[in-house]
């Protein structure tokens, strides 16, 4: 009897917390379909007009473009730097290995705001404030921990005997790497890349501190709008689209790679 009460209460509490957790996402959907230019509840109707406005809006589309460009470059460079680093961490010994490992993960561990202040001054000194390359490099640093972590996790699942077996059957080290190791590590690489892309795309703090007026990313655009003119239904509609895309990415990732096991 007490068992049933316990189970019911924990299940209900669990779903209440989940409901609270997802409430803001439900709210932006409610806000995005409200046709009134100034939001109020109850709504006077339901409409998709703001989605259309968002897709036509030059400022928002430009912001989406900037965010996509920055995130893409950040991921590519992050993969280029992170994959070899992960291999080195997994397979080789070297001096100060722990420190180096922590260094790579540091942007994920330390508070972003403090890093942002340091970066602000550093870039200001180098006259790099507001530059695209500065923003991209900062985002590379943000993306790298995710790439390295996921590749390391993937590597831990790779049985080294497989490579030894392949080579004992006559494969060159290069071939055993390309045909055995790489395919096994690919899920980790893809998960790290996609996660890194999303982290870069949705970054607000670093971008707000260092991006200046020339390269306005999507979150910065929303931030400026919110601080300046208040709640903008176009921004809300854009956010709904972004969240939907992220959710689809999550589902695809789970179906293809079961990436929740990496979390």
């Amino acid at each position, binding site marked *: 009897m007490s068992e049933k009460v316990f189970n019911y209460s924990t299940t209900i509490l669990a779903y*209440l917390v989940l409901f609270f*957790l997802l409430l803001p996402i439900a709210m932006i959907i409610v806000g995005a379909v409200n046709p009134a230019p100034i939001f109020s509840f109850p709504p006077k109707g339901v409409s998709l007009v703001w989605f259309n406005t968002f897709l036509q809006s030059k400022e928002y589309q430009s912001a989406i473009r900037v965010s996509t460009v920055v995130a893409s470059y950040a991921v590519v460079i992050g993969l280029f730097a992170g994959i070899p680093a992960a291999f080195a961490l997994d397979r080789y010994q070297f001096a100060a290995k722990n420190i180096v490992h922590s260094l790579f993960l540091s942007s994920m561990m330390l*508070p972003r705001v403090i890093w942002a*202040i340091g970066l602000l001054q550093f870039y200001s000194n180098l006259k790099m404030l507001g530059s695209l390359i500065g923003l991209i490099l900062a985002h590379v640093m943000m993306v790298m921990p995710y790439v390295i972590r996921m590749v390391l996790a993937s590597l831990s699942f790779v049985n080294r005997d497989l490579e030894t077996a392949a080579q004992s059957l006559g494969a060159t080290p290069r071939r055993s790497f390309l045909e055995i190791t790489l395919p096994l590590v690919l899920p980790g690489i893809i998960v790290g890349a996609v996660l890194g892309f999303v982290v870069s795309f949705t970054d607000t703090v670093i971008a707000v501190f260092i991006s200046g007026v020339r390269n306005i990313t999507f979150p910065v655009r929303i931030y400026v709008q919110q601080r300046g003119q208040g*709640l903008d239904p176009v921004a809300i509609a854009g956010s709904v689209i972004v969240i939907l895309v992220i959710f689809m990415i999550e589902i695809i990732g789970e179906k293809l790679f079961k990436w929740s096991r990496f979390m």
Partner: protein
Amino acid sequence: MSTGKSVWYKAILLSPAVLISLFVFVIPFFQLVIFSFWRYRPSSNIPEPAFSLANYSHLLITEGSYYLGVYWDTIRIGFIATVIVFIVSYPLSWYIARQKGMKKGILILLVMLPMIGGGMIQTLGWIVFLMPYGVLNGSLRELGIIQSSLKLLGNDIGVIIGLVQSFIPVMVLPLVTALGSINPVLEPAARSLGAGPWKVFFKITFPLSLPGAIAGALLVFLSNITSFVTPLLLGLGKVQMFATVSYTMGVEVMNYPFASAFAFFPMVVILVGWLGFKNIKRLIHSKALN
């Protein structure tokens, strides 16, 4: 597992990552510390090199009442939010830990969604919900439950709500792992000895999950006290916390030396506190062994 590779080979593998980390992270951080001892020059962005504690004295003494107040408010709000996160995460984590297969995967995806979506989007949702003619106030007014809107934005309440929701995933994910790693024979064993499910939870499950839970809670606390977008937008500029004041000092006023001191001082405190905590732990350990 060294395979005798040369130093050069390892260096090549590591160098892009190391160079980027040094340039974009380590050096700016050191510059922040150094700048905190330099003097502010209103005319240019580059501060005057010096070795001066002027910024720190300004921070802690001259305007200490304000800035120490900001630190305190940040800790206070962060602590309250962390406690709430700790409590509400348990039922959800416990439930998820008990699920299997696809259902568990979907639940984890849902929990992760706000975290990956980012604070900016969540904050917009909260504004829609909490604003004077938003979903909450609008519904309550329609139902006649209240006459005038509840003031939930521009104060601690809205910020705490936002912070709690932002960081529940940060607590839930490690807690699910912690709960899942408890030896599966323990709970049935306790039940077979006659303990009811509540007793099993409080005497077996909860204590065993505590290390993971505390680690999660520390991470949540750190995230709370350094949060930027949530306090700024839900506080409507009226709630001053660590990150918002850092922004004002750094980006708006552009007083880099002072902003550095403001940002670096808490790190000193945390470092000292952490070292002290470790040493106290070691002391207690060695006393216990004797």
